[in-house]
């Protein structure tokens, strides 16, 4: 059985007009010529739609990086994790957000709040990097 290809588009419900003038009969506004497009948040937040996932942050371990409980994380799996990046990692089968740092024993997941010990990443640990956090959306 064959399924039709769907267009690879992504739309957003939040679109703001770049410039808009009131419609008044008989007086075309000169500004109308400049209305070309609307701002699409997806364009700014998502570089690789196929590889981008949203996750919900839990806990307080990354408060220092401005990540609060309940914040929305934009995670791009196409990015290669590098030292200094905030990543979503899998530790003991669970998702966690931490900063990828270089510790004395190699790559390490480091929290940014007191009381959370660093988690070493090595050949004999069950830790994998799931994706790179590219944006944090926080409700003020």
């Amino acid at each position, binding site marked *: 059985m064959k399924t039709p290809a769907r267009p690879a588009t992504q739309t957003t419900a939040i679109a703001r007009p770049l410039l808009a003038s009131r419609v008044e009969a008989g007086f075309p506004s000169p500004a109308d010529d400049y209305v070309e497009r609307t701002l699409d948040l997806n364009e700014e937040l998502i570089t690789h739609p196929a590889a981008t996932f949203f996750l919900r942050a839990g806990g307080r371990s990354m408060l220092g990086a401005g990540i609060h409980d309940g914040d929305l994380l934009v995670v791009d*799996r196409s990015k290669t994790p590098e030292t200094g990046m905030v990543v979503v990692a899998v530790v003991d*089968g669970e*998702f966690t957000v931490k900063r990828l740092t270089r510790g004395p024993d190699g790559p390490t997941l480091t929290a940014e709040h007191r009381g959370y010990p660093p988690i070493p990443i090595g050949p004999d640990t069950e830790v994998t990097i799931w994706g790179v956090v590219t944006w944090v959306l926080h409700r003020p």
Partner: protein
Amino acid sequence: MYALVDCNNFYASCERVFQPALEGRPVIVLSNNDGCVVARSQEAKDVGIAMGEPFFKCRERIRRHRIAVRSSNYTLYEDMSRRVVQTIMRFIPDVEIYSIDEVFLDLDPLVGRDLEALCRTTRATVRQWTGIPVSVGIAPTKTLAKLANRIAKKTPGTDGVYWFPAGEAEQARVLKSVAIEDVWGIGRRWSARLHALGVRTALDLSRMPASEVRRGFNIVAMHTALELRGVPCQELEDDPQLRQTLVRSRSFGRMVSSWPELSEAIASHAIRAAEKLRHENARAGHLSVFVHTNRFREDLPQYGGSGSCELLPATSTTPVILSKALEIGQRLWRSGFQYKKAGVMLSEITRGPVQAGLFEQRDEQRDDRLMGTMDRINRKMGSGTLRPAASSFKPQRWAMAQDHRSPRYTTRWDELPRTR
């Protein structure tokens, strides 16, 4: 040259992307309604869970091997499937989406490049971007690409990519290793008759004279035989317009017997099918409706029926399709039976402007505007906000049993995966 990309244990793999704790554990996914096993991780295959096995028959093994059980989560699988295809298309743009987990690729436009390296890069990128493991078979025909994919999947040394060999002796060796019932398009229906003729492997079929295959079977089987020899008979079907039918059906969560309940289900399927048609800018010329009881419940009286009608002119208008579907449904319904499933099928699908019919009475343009407005509102406000009064406003009692469904991680704001 063609390639077939096939996602490994697709449904189970989708579940694992968002539940990493399932990695290394046996996982099974159940059919609509939690009836039987429709997908298994490798570990579940290894402990002897069979495809299609009824759920209740595996309960003991599920406990013993700590098998993770999931209801099918088609919302998630469809979204992941879309991501896999999008990723593939960055590398190889000519694709035919063959099923939710299989994509044919046309490699001819890329000739001159290192195709195997390209396929390996594609495979690795799909894995990284989406988390889904895939296998790739490369060959001069689609039938052979399908066969090569099987080998890529089953042979450890291939690392997930297998190119059907060029040398004749090598080809014969590979074809001989594939049983006739495992050849794409042959299936159980023909394999018994082929066995009787002494045709047991793909190699045997490829050596049968084409005219003989055509006489003994049909033209489809002849194409299969030719394709096994490396003669392409099927091109990519990359055009959704070729889709001939559209089916919306579902088993009931529990059996229903009354006409109000059955008609609600038929109405809901008809409405969704019409919506889908309009989404594809298509119209249907033929409508059929079917209902049946649970044939596995031998203790209950059995009944099944289907009926159909022409849609003249071809239409995608909800009120027309809905009223005809209900008319047919009413003719099919008999009291005293417990119904298990109902569905609606639209066929003779066409695109583009309609021919004005001689006896056309409805104002099709007005219908189109009305339907367009309804679809827009439903897209904005949520599916089912506006609907004809025949479909229920109460929570639907016939909705599927999905006791083990995981969250719709990629399509619902309130079901996103959480970090700890």
